[in-house]
């Protein structure tokens, strides 16, 4: 299998990242929680979470981190190197939700020998924004 790369030279500020949708199920919520070793009941126990007055179990923060990483490097290809991510969680993402991921390049710059872009992203669910934030990625350059 060959892997494509997004090169720094080819990126423009304002450029939109692909829109990607993902169907969230009990299995994706629970497998994400367990793969990130988060055994908090609100991420696997429906009775527990409904007793707290919430609709259902919901995605844990580490799974959102994982989805952010996947969204960004699925776009750049494996040569894109995540430097940092930062986001705010606004509304929970529940099983049955379709998550719609969008993003945009907001800044393109160099720092030392690194060729960087800052991106912003927004993961929406039917009831509103699940999370929104920014990330910094080092991209490969043509001829390197």
């Amino acid at each position, binding site marked *: *299998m060959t*892997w494509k790369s997004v090169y720094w030279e080819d990126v423009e500020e304002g450029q939109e990242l692909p829109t990607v949708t*993902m169907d969230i199920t009990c299995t*994706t919520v629970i*497998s*994400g929680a*367990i*793969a*990130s*070793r*988060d*055994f908090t009941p609100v991420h696997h126990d429906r009775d527990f979470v409904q007793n707290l*007055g919430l609709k259902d179990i919901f995605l844990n*923060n*580490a*799974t*959102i*981190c*994982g*989805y*952010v*990483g*996947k969204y960004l*490097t*699925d776009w750049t290809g*494996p040569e894109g190197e*995540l*430097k*940092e*991510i*930062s*986001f*705010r*969680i606004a509304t929970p993402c529940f099983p049955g939700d379709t998550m719609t991921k969008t993003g945009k390049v907001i800044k393109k710059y160099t720092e030392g020998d690194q060729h960087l872009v800052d991106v912003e992203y927004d993961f929406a669910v039917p009831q509103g924004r699940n999370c929104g934030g920014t990330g910094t990625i080092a991209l490969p350059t043509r001829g390197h």
Partner: protein
Amino acid sequence: MGVEFYEELKELVGQEGSQLVAVDEVCKPMIRHWCEAMQDGNPLYTDEEYARESKYGSIIAPPTMLLTWTMPPLWPPGEKPPHPFELFLAKLDEAGYYGILITNVAQKYHRPLFPGDHLTFTYKVTDVSPEKKTGLGNGYFVTTTFIFTNQKGETVGTQSLTVLKYRIGS
């Protein structure tokens, strides 16, 4: 709660807990489980041949797994003295702020993590807001910062987490 309570909370800000050691080394099975759950096909994480030819020369862990390596075991229960952050949460629980919700996450990655790396970490409460009115109830935003170090003593990354501790239905 009053100004006095907020002052008591602020006194706990910046108190460093003891250094903690990750239960497991960075390893390929946990990386693969993560990729399976996150549906992440990045070949640096699971394709030996691709990773060997890459600039890393080996499989690396997804950087976003940072906190996962240092999550406490479900069993057996820990016997360590409580961390200042736990004391912080207990103090808010006692005052009736039982609700807890993560609101902000930030991670910085300084170095890649390779299978066999063994992390240690420290964390401390770095900020607490004054009491705020939120859609869920009145509460305090508490920010904790983690610093992760590998077996060579190099900082591999940092993470900050902000939680809202709120009085349910207030």
